[in-house]
């Protein structure tokens, strides 16, 4: 019977699509795990480099205070840190005079 054939076909397709979905989920989990690990390594690497710089102690350029360095990092990742548009994405990584003022500007204490 033709109709029965179709049913079997459907069964088969359903099975394979379920397989595919399962594999996708597995792969997604692996990727997110790797990304997480990557981020951790990056942070650790940063810390190690900082430590290294401290030990070497040959940095002659004046360092920005910790808070400003965090802002600088955010800015370099492509986000605004200025009061005008804090947190907004910097389109095409265009520079922002307000952000630069926040990071490098002289601020009365």
């Amino acid at each position: 019977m033709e109709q029965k054939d179709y049913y079997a076909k459907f069964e088969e397709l359903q099975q394979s699509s379920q397989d595919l979905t399962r594999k996708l989920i597995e792969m997604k989990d692996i990727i997110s795990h790797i990304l997480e690990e990557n981020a951790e390594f990056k942070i650790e690497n940063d810390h190690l480099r900082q430590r290294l710089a401290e030990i070497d102690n040959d940095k002659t350029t004046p360092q920005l205070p910790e808070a400003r360095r965090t802002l600088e990092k955010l800015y370099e990742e492509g986000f605004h840190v200025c009061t005008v548009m804090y947190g907004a994405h910097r389109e095409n990584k265009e520079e922002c005079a307000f952000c630069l003022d926040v990071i490098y500007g002289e601020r009365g204490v």
Partner: protein
Amino acid sequence: MKFTINRNQFIKKISNVQRAISTKTTIPILTGIKLELSQEGLTITGSDVDISIQTFISVSDADNELHIENTGAIVLPARFFNEIIKKLPGEQFTLNVVENNQTIIKSGKTEFTINGLDANSYPRLPEVESNEKLSISAEMLRQLVDETVFSASKQENRPILTGLHLKISAEKLLGVATDSHRLAQRIVKVNNQSDNDYDIVVPARSLKELEHCLIEDNSEIKISISENQILFEFQNTLFYSRLLEGNYPGTDRLIPTSSDTQLTFDAKSLLQSVERASLLSHASRNNVVRLAIDVNASKVTLYGNSPEVGTVEENLTTEALSGADLEISFNPDYLKEALQAFGDTKIEVEFTSALHPFTLKPSDNKENFIQLITPVRTF
């Protein structure tokens, strides 16, 4: 309502009003032009909510050849009305509103019958109390707009930056526009008889339209400001614009007070050099040119490159050069627009560091005109 008028005079007078009328409006009646006839003359109004322009054709001005038979008001579809008047054969035309807002326009042997709209349903113009105390010469206003407005943001996601920030205190009018990548600030003189100071933000688009209306004007323009509207009065014309709401970010502290490297250029020749360098930078993905300053060798070099096309290198002619060596990269388009605003003059360019914005000022007007460009970080 019925009147006869000189066609060419009429076309001239309505051209400004046409600027305010947009075809893309959400309120259908605003695609129309409102004509209102009184014994004194004809008042014509156009509006797109943000900008409203009203002009008056006086019966006492003989050039207008305005003859009034009976008074009244009507709103006519602006686009068709304009085209019709332009193409009419006679030197004069007669406009007659008959019943049901039907309007007959007659000139020579031609007769149009147009479906108008009831003038009572046309929105009322904003109310701005006319102030006799604040005025500026048309030329000053044109300069102010010309030299700043291009720096305003074109992106609607930060509405406040799409305007020009105007600060009036005593006889001084300070205008600032910035899109956060560059900034232009101009100070001009106003005639302010009142004790009031003002701090407002006017949409850049309104000012560009206003500038077009003022092209051949050299009169004194009266300015009145209410809570959310600004009104410019000139030559039988009223120009209303909405003001932008919100606080404009503080820009004073963006402008550096000291510098480490100073250069003086001829604006025109620098503009040509930048245009050459940008030929290649436009072809690359990040559109950046690099400026290298070697003070001891008194050499200033501008580099542009595109990985696919090639490179360009040019030694710039400087009028003066002092301070520390520096290498800095920036978007050439911002420098180009800034230089275009300066015209043919000597300019002083001052740098602090490769991370800090640099400034440009005309040598002969350092106090009143300053432009600022943010460099691009290239590491």
